[in-house]
């Protein structure tokens, strides 16, 4: 708990929050009487890759959903570049958990990617050849161009995840929020996804991902938020991703997923 107090004490100033592509303050969500997340303050750094890490039931997905107002928070505010979320929706792309949809739905890979452009197209905007070629380019970036006309149910789990990422790319957003993008995907997909995310970061975009594999945090991410209902620690991986903080976040449950301290330091 001391750690939580320390981070709470070192509050990022108002200027940092206004400049942040995603800043949440005092965010609390509860299903029933127990809070899923409680008074969470997070200020995401621009142009960085941030991991949200924590044990099962720590509220990682809930934090993303509440930041997007998909789940209604009990309390707290969300700002995007200092503006209220509602005005900045177009700047954010969300990649939900793969298991959240019915993959027998009658739609093809290319149709799913086109959904990323529905905001831009509006209700009746014509789909033009440029839109289609843009969607194909997004599929190509995740290595799925050959699958454009397949029904989505024919894809493997990793391929489904890549299609979801392609849909987010089609939004041409500045901020990408991903919920467990590496859950249950093959190694090739993990490599493909991380390459795309790093290229987004290298072109100034901001990436935030709920992540469950502690071993890969230092390789993949620049910043980390350790969450267990409350924020245990948040900041650059080199400073925050320490044995002590992990122990506080995971309690005694950190056994197999234990991070190697040397790799953390390096």
């Amino acid at each position, binding site marked *: 708990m001391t750690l939580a107090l320390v981070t709470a004490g070192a509050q990022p100033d108002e200027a940092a929050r206004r400049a942040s592509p995603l800043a949440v303050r005092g965010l609390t969500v509860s299903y029933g009487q127990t809070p899923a997340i409680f008074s969470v303050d997070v200020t995401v750094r621009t142009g960085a890759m941030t991991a949200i890490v924590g044990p099962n039931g720590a509220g990682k997905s809930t934090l993303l959903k509440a930041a997007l107002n998909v789940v209604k928070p009990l309390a707290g505010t969300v700002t995007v570049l200092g503006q209220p979320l509602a005005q900045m929706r177009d700047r954010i792309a969300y990649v939900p958990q793969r298991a959240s949809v019915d993959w027998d739905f009658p739609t093809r890979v290319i149709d799913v990617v086109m959904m990323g452009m529905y905001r831009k197209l509006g209700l*009746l905007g014509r789909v033009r050849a440029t839109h289609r070629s843009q969607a194909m380019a997004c599929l190509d970036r995740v290595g799925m161009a050959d699958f454009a006309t397949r029904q989505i149910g024919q894809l493997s789990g990793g391929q489904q995840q890549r299609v979801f990422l392609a849909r987010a790319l089609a939004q041409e957003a500045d901020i990408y929020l991903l919920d467990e993008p590496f859950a249950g995907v093959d190694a090739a997909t993990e490599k493909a996804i991380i390459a795309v995310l790093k290229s987004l970061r290298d072109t100034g975009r901001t990436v935030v991902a709920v992540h469950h594999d502690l071993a890969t945090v230092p390789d993949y991410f620049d910043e980390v938020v350790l969450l267990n209902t409350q924020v245990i620690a948040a900041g650059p991986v080199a400073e925050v991703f320490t044995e002590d903080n992990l122990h506080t976040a995971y309690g005694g449950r950190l056994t197999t997923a234990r991070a190697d301290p040397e790799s953390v330091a390096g």
Partner: protein
Amino acid sequence: MLADALLLQLGYNATLVTIGATLLGMAAGVAGTFLFLRKRALVSDAISHATLPGVGLAFMVMVALGGDGRALPGLLLGAGVSAALGLLCVQWLTARTRLGEDAAIGAVLSVFFGFGVVILTVIQTMTAGRQAGLEGFLLGSTAGMLRSDAVLLAVAAALVLALVMLLRRPLELASFDSGYAQAAGWSLARIDLAMMGIVLVVTVVGLKVVGLILIVALLIVPAVTARFWTDRTDHVVLIAGAVGGLSGYAGAALSAVAPALPTGPIIVLVGFALFLVSLLVSPGRGLLASVVMHHRYQRRVHMRQGLLALAQGQPIFEALTRRLLHRAGLILPDGVATATGQAAAAKALLDETRWSIVRMDQSFAAAATRYDGLTPIEDVLTPDQLREVDARIDAPQVVA
């Protein structure tokens, strides 16, 4: 006689009914598609049963005001209001209590319907209620259909089609991935409200044609039928509209030929027949197709395994495998390979080696998903790719 009916040559009333039923079927098929895709099909059952008390109360109010209790606009207005109330109850129970939507639907459906039956019974005892004919709302009654009724159906159908056209993108998003739709800034509550509003319009105007008990079939069956024929959302909508329209048209024509048959139930049965045909014979998802595909697949597996066994000089024990190979002239009755058999076996072994290379290499990811141990590799790879793979068979394999 049936030909006359289908060509709308069976008199004024039959023609009106046929046109009206066709329009209703189209509207219901299109409106029901998104309900089905959003997995909320049974909500429409609650909506339709919840119309009954409204019909009865509207009748009583109109009689009390000294008017004709049977005025259709008044009855439909009452039906719409009470259906909307029922819908709100389902929404409220689902959102605010621990009841699931299935339980909420069951509760609302039975309570509203029970209340409606009570009101109808009371009306029977009123002097004005003797010839009210409100039972027609239960199973539909098209006998006295007027020109104005057909016009009402036409207007409602046009409205429904226009709304679905306008809202197709949010409806599709909400049905496929509601979380993503919300994150992108669409209001799920408003999309659902619009979806249910469209269904409500179809239900209310459809009461006189098919009745409140069967309207749910007209909303759901066309969409389920359409799903057998396509993997695209927009096509499901169009096919469902066509299936619904065809059910209405053929059903109304049939019941015009045999006046003893009630129109509404016949329309539903025609829709069911179309569903049954689709279930059996649709190429991708139909029952027959899957049985045939399974058999064909099994034979190909046996052939392939037999050939690989031949190539590796192993004995073949399974009778089916031996029979298939023998029939294809690949082995003699004693199990020894013929010349063609030896060539085919060598080819099978080569293909197997090629496939294993394709499956190990990420650059062939798309091709590798088509591996089933059976597809000829020449169908999947270009001649250039095949040469590339063959070059690697001879090259020494580097094992890391």
